[in-house]
């Protein structure tokens, strides 16, 4: 092997190692970005953590608020839709689950969605739904009946004068959407 061939081979291996390093660097970017974000606060990670902290339970046991549930359906007689419990007493800061019952009596397979409303409306900002059947359309086969959960936290920062919160759902199915149009 001549000197030049040897030099070529050496440089070839160096460059291949460089390429392999670059391949590894692509993967290293994943942790590097999280380090960058947590050090600088970019990407709103601190804000996300603050949001997450709200979700952790710090119940204010000295205070009790009544939450009542109302339901209505867009087309009477085709759906049964009601809360399992009509009224609950909750402590602000406590995670709570309420169940709603829906029964499809239209005789067809249906996709339906509940639209929430909170009263008084000024309280809406203090009422955090962490999970809700109203977040997505719900599929029902003909005659199907089932319970669906909503999980919520009443913010401990809820103004002092509020003692009653009303969560109301209206249930729409596909056919009501068509008639609405």
């Amino acid at each position, binding site marked *: 092997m001549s000197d*030049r061939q040897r*030099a*070529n081979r050496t*440089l*070839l291996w160096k*460059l*291949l190692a*460089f*390429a*392999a*390093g*670059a*391949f*590894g*660097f*692509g*993967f290293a*970017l*994943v942790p590097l*970005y999280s380090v960058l974000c947590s050090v*600088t*606060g*970019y*990407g*709103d990670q601190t804000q996300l953590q603050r949001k997450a902290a709200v979700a952790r339970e710090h119940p204010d046991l000295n205070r009790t608020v009544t939450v009542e549930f109302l339901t209505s359906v867009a087309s009477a007689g085709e759906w049964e839709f009601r809360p399992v419990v009509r009224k609950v007493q909750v402590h602000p800061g406590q995670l709570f689950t309420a169940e709603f019952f829906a029964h499809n009596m239209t005789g067809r397979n249906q996709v339906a969605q509940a639209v929430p409303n909170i009263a008084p409306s000024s309280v809406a900002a203090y009422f955090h739904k962490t999970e809700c059947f109203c977040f997505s359309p719900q599929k029902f086969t003909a005659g199907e009946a089932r319970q669906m959960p909503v999980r919520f936290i009443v913010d401990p920062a809820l103004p002092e004068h509020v003692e009653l919160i009303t969560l109301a759902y209206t249930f729409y199915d596909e056919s009501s959407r068509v008639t609405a149009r």
Partner: protein
Amino acid sequence: MADHALDAAHDHDSHDHKPHGWRRWVYATNHKDIGTMYLVFACTMFFIGGAMAMVIRLELFKPGMQFVDPQLFNSMTTMHALVMIFGAVMPAWTGLANWMIPMQVGAPDMALPRLNNFSFWILPFAFTLLLSSLFVPGGAPAGGWTMYPPLVLQNGASFPMLIFSIHMMGASSILGAINVVVTIMNMRAPGMTLLRMPLFVWTWLITAYLLIAVMPVLAGAVTMLLTDHFFGTTFFTAAGGGDPVMFQHIFWFFGHPEVYILILPAFGIVSEVIPTFSRKPLFGYEAMVYAVASIAFLSFIVWAHHMFTVGMPLAAQLFFMLSTMLIAIPTGVKVFNWTATMWKGSLSFEPPMLFALAFLFLFTIGGFSGLMLAIVPADYQYQDTYFVVAHFHYVLVPGAVFGIMAGVYYWLPKWTGHMYNVRLANWHFWLSTIFVNVLFFPQHFLGLAGMPRRIPDYAVQFTDWNMVSSIGAFGFGLSQLLFPLLIWQCVRSGAKVGNRAWEGAHGLEWELPSPPPYHSWTEAPSDALIARGASH
């Protein structure tokens, strides 16, 4: 006298060791044969990708859905980009590098000939895999060439084909780039110092380093997509703690240097063509080298300007905006130096010069719209509109593609020993230049008026400019057919040319006969020849 002796020696050499028939190409280790295969491959892909662009423009000729369904339309935009970037422009540059770099640095061949064969022959397999995805259930990739998750993960059977073809293209271009670096660093003739190298060699050296640095990052990004899809990792899946925006960051860390990979060799070619036809040395040779190096460096720290709207802190937006605008400085140096080279030159307008001049004007237009896109608040309006499409096509078609055309028209007489049909080449130039503007200039207006990209239908107020643009596209596409015709004619026949096919040309390749011997510089060129070539 010395030249004659040298020619005779080459003539003797050129008659041996040349395999014939299919073995010459499949077992090829000769830099010219491999360069030719790269160029033929690139030309084929240019027409396949061009046909896809025709489908896009046909559908956009009128509002409403005419010819293709939206899924196929999206496949066409995705595949057009992948085929043109990885199949046409990059292999064309590697082909030109193969042909020219050994001749320009005084080497007999590329440093690693068998690796060279391997890196070429990966490509037909990669593109067979990619193009055959058009025929699998679910159709070809349709989520855009940028492959953003989660959309790309929903692509059915073509998804793994896309990923593996990207892996193969990446391997091919990394190996090709390594070969270029080793050739330039180790195979230069004695006396060919770094700052005597022609600018095409310089720009390719820097391009090769960019390729080695970022193609593996793309390979990593698509590997993460693959494992996310099939092996349950969650690099980009929020449900498992990943982040889809992370993919965009990694992709554009590759993607921005990639756009300079596509354009830097064109800078090199224009830097050789303009002095030849101005009959003056290049103005500011060293400044040109440093400008290319600084553009390459800056290309690593501007990637997030492709994704201003994903949600980024103000400080990051400011940083990426300012670093992007900084690129205008070395680019401005280059444009100034090309113009200054022509100043008081003895200009003539042969086809390579025409393409280089069109490059100079039209690439600069693309550069200006790039500056507009760099401005964060303006970018919020332009993001994902036809303005972006107009911008990057101005830098890629009359930029990179015209650079390739200029290079081919410049060196074709050297390769074949024949002068081509200059009249036909002029037709090719004028038709291309007129239609490329008819094609892409109205897209600026469409984008500013709010027409989104990658959508098969549009609101009726965009109809007129879309029709104009489509007419430009058909004209541009048809006029490209002259190009292979002209090359074929030139290979078969034509007036014989001497060593120095253009009387103003400088550089070692013009000291070799036309066509050059099979092995370029079996004896290193003398210092006098090198000095004559490096006239800057």
